C-alpha cells in the first residue's frame, strides 16, 4: 500500500491505465519493490511464503484449493504482470536480477522442503510455493516467450494445484487423515481420485504431454533467450536460472512419486479397507480440472491463442521452436498401450501362487510389510548441509513471522524491564530524555 501511495506521489494518479513509470530512480524502484512484495506474498513466493504451509496444515482442502492454489496465484501473478508491464517500465537490470533470484530460489528451496514432508496438504503447499518460482522467473526474463510462459504457468498451476488439493481433500475425507504414512493402496478403492491426482501430479512435474510441460518449456526458452541489454547481469547468469528450473522440475517429479506411492500404490493399511470413492459432487470438479490439464497440454495452441497471447499482446510467431504435442501424445499412448499389453500377457501366461510373506520364522502381518513413501527421501534429509536446512526450517529460523514474533517478544521484554514501577528509575529516564532533547536542540542551532 505504501507502494501505491508512492506511485501516486510520483505519477499524480491512481488510475492504473494512466501510469507508466521508468524504474531508473530511487522512488519508483522502492515503489516497485513494495508492490512486488505484495504480489509475491499473495502468490506465496520466498521469503514471505511461510503462511502457506501453515495454512495448508490446518485449513480445509477446499479452502486451500480455492485461495492459495488457484485465486491467490491468479491475483498475485496478475498484479505482478500489471506492475511489470503496465505500471512500470522494467528497465532496471537490478530489478530483473532480484526477480530472477527470487524465482530460482523459490523453485529449488521450496521443492527441497516439499520432498521431506509427511503431511499431504503441507507437501502440496510447499509445491504451491515452488511453482510460483517458475512464474516469477518467466516474468523476470523480460522476453515475450518467458512472460507468456510465466502467465501460462500461472493458469496451468491454478488448474493442477487446485485439482491436487481437491484430490487430497477427497483422500482425507475418505481415509480420515492427511498423514502420508497412514495412507496407501487407495488406487483401487478410489480410482477416479487416483487417475485425476496422477494426471495433476504428472502435470506439475512437467511431464509431456500435460499442460505443466508446455508452460515450463516456455519458461526455459525465455531464460535461454534473456537479453543482456535489457536484463544485464541476470541475462549473463541464465545457466544458473535454467539449472534451478530444470532441477526443480526433476525434484518435483521425485516428490510426487512419493506422494502417489504413499496414497495410492503402497499396501492398503488394515484400517482403510472400507474406504470408498467420494461422491460425484466432489469427483466432478476433479475430473474437469484433470481434463483441462490434458487439453491445455495436448492442444496448447488453443489456450495460448485464446487467452495468453491476446492478454500480453505477444506476437504468436515469436514463441516456440518445435514441439509436436499431437505426435508425442500418440507415441506416449502407444508406449503405455504396449506396456499394458506386455503386463497382461505376462500375467495371463504365468501360473503364480500368492502367499503371505514368511520371514524370520513367522508370517508377517500386512502392516509389517508396508513401505510408506515417507521413507523414500530420508537419506536426503540426513545429508550434510540439507540436514541443517531442514532442522532450521522446522524450528522456524527462516520464517519471517516467527522471527518477527521473537523480535516483538524481545522488544516487549525490554519495555517491561524499563517499566519497573520504581519512581527513581522513571525520574532517571525523564532526566536522560530531557538531556538528549537539550543536546539535539543545541546541536541544531
Amino acid at each position, binding site marked *: *500500500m*505504501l*507502494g*501505491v*501511495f*508512492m*506511485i*501516486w*506521489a510520483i505519477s*499524480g*494518479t*491512481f*488510475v*492504473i491505465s494512466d501510469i507508466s513509470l521508468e524504474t531508473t530512480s530511487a522512488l519508483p524502484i522502492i515503489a516497485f519493490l*513494495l508492490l512486488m512484495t*505484495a504480489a509475491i*506474498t499473495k502468490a506465496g513466493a520466498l521469503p*514471505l511464503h*511461510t*503462511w*502457506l504451509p501453515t*495454512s495448508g*496444515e*490446518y*485449513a*480445509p*482442502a*477446499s*479452502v486451500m*484449493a*480455492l*485461495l492459495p492454489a*488457484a*485465486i*491467490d496465484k*491468479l*491475483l498475485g501473478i*496478475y*498484479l505482478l*504482470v*500489471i506492475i511489470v508491464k503496465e505500471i512500470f517500465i522494467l528497465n532496471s537490470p537490478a530489478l530483473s536480477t532480484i526477480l530472477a533470484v527470487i524465482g530460482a530460489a523459490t523453485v529449488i528451496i521450496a521443492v527441497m522442503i516439499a520432498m521431506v514432508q509427511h503431511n499431504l496438504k503441507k507437501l502440496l503447499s510447499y509445491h504451491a510455493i515452488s511453482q510460483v518460482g517458475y512464474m516469477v522467473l518467466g516474468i523476470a526474463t523480460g522476453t515475450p516467450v518467458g512472460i507468456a510462459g510465466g*502467465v501460462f504457468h500461472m493458469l496451468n498451476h491454478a488448474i493442477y494445484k*487446485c485439482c491436487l488439493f*481437491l484430490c487430497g*481433500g*477427497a483422500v482425507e*475425507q475418505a481415509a480420515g487423515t492427511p498423514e502420508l504414512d497412514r495412507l496407501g493402496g487407495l488406487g483401487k478403492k478410489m480410482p477416479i481420485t487416483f487417475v485425476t491426482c496422477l494426471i495433476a501430479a504428472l502435470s506439475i512435474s512437467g511431464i509431456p504431454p500435460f499442460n505443466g510441460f508446455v508452460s515450463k518449456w516456455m519458461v526455459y526458452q525465455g531464460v535461454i533467450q534473456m537479453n543482456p541489454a535489457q536484463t544485464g547481469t541476470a541475462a549473463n547468469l541464465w545457466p544458473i536460472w535454467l539449472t534451478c528450473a530444470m532441477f526443480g522440475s526433476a525434484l518435483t517429479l521425485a516428490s510426487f512419486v512419493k506422494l502417489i506411492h504413499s496414497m495410492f500404490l503402497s499396501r492398503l493399511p488394515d484400517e482403510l479397507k472400507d474406504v470408498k470413492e467420494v461422491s460425484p459432487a*466432489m469427483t466432478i*470438479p476433479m475430473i*474437469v*480440472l484433470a481434463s483441462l490439464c490434458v487439453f491445455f497440454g495436448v492442444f496448447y495452441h488453443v489456450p495460448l491463442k*485464446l*487467452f*495468453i497471447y*491476446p*492478454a*500480453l*499482446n505477444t506476437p504468436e510467431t515469436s514463441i516456440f521452436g518445435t514441439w509436436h504435442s499431437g505426435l508425442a501424445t500418440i507415441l506416449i499412448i502407444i508406449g503405455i498401450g504396449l506396456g499394458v499389453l506386455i503386463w497382461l500377457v505376462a500375467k495371463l501366461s504365468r501360473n503364480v501362487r500368492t502367499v503371505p510373506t514368511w520371514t524370520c520364522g513367522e508370517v508377517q502381518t500386512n502392516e509389517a510389510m508396508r513401505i510408506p513413501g515417507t521413507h523414500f527421501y530420508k537419506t536426503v534429509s540426513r545429508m550434510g548441509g540439507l540436514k541443517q536446512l531442514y532442522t532450521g526450517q522446522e524450528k522456524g529460523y527462516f520464517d*519471517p*513471522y516467527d522471527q518477527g514474533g521473537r523480535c516483538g517478544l524481545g522488544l516487549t521484554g525490554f519495555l517491561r524491564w524499563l517499566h519497573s514501577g520504581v519512581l527513581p528509575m522513571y525520574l532517571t529516564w525523564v532526566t536522560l530524555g530531557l538531556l538528549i532533547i537539550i543536546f539535539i536542540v543545541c546541536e541544531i542551532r
Partner: protein
Amino acid sequence: MNILCIPVFLPLIVGFVLLFLPNKLKSTSRALTLIISGLTFILGIRIFTGGESAYNWLILQLGDVNLDLLLITTSLSKFVLLFAMGFGLLITLYSLKSVGPNAKRVNEYYGAILLTIGGSAGILLSNHLLFLLIFWEIVTVSLYLLITTGGKNSNFAATKSFAMIGASDAAFMLGVCRFYARRLYDMGNFGDFCNLRY
C-alpha cells in the same frame, strides 16, 4: 446495472449477508452460493466473449474532489476473471459434499467463498489503485475467515496468514501520512491533494 458491477457486488453483498445468517439456514446458504457462483461464472464467460468495456461510478464528490469507482476490462483481466469465477463454481460444487451437513460455521464458510469471488472480480476489473487495494483486503479477510473454518488450531494458521499478507498494510498508513504531509506542503491546497484523479 452494468455487467461489470454484477460479478463484483452481487457476491460481495450476498456473501456479507450469509456471514450473519442463522445456523439453521445452512441449506439456503449452500443453494445461494451455488446459484451466485454459477451466475458469476456465466457473467465471466459473457465478459470474456464480449468486447472491452468500462464503467465509471462517481462514489464521492465534494467540490472539486472526485472519487470514482473505475471498472475496466482488458484482455488479461478478462481471461483471469473467467478462470477465477470458474474455480469459484468448482469449489462451491465440491464443498456441497466436503463441507458436510454436520459441519460448524457453514454459513460463514459459504459467505467467505462469495466474498472471495466478489473480491477477486473487483481486483481484476478495478482500474483504480485505491479500489484495487480495498478488494485486495477483502480477499485477505475472506482467506482469514476460510482458514478459521478448519477447526482446531486453524486460528493460529489464519492469524499468521493474515499477518503476513497484511504486513504491508501497516506501511500503508505510514505511506498515507508521509505523502499527505509532503503533498499538502508542496501544494498548499487540500482540494488538490484529495482530488484523486488528475
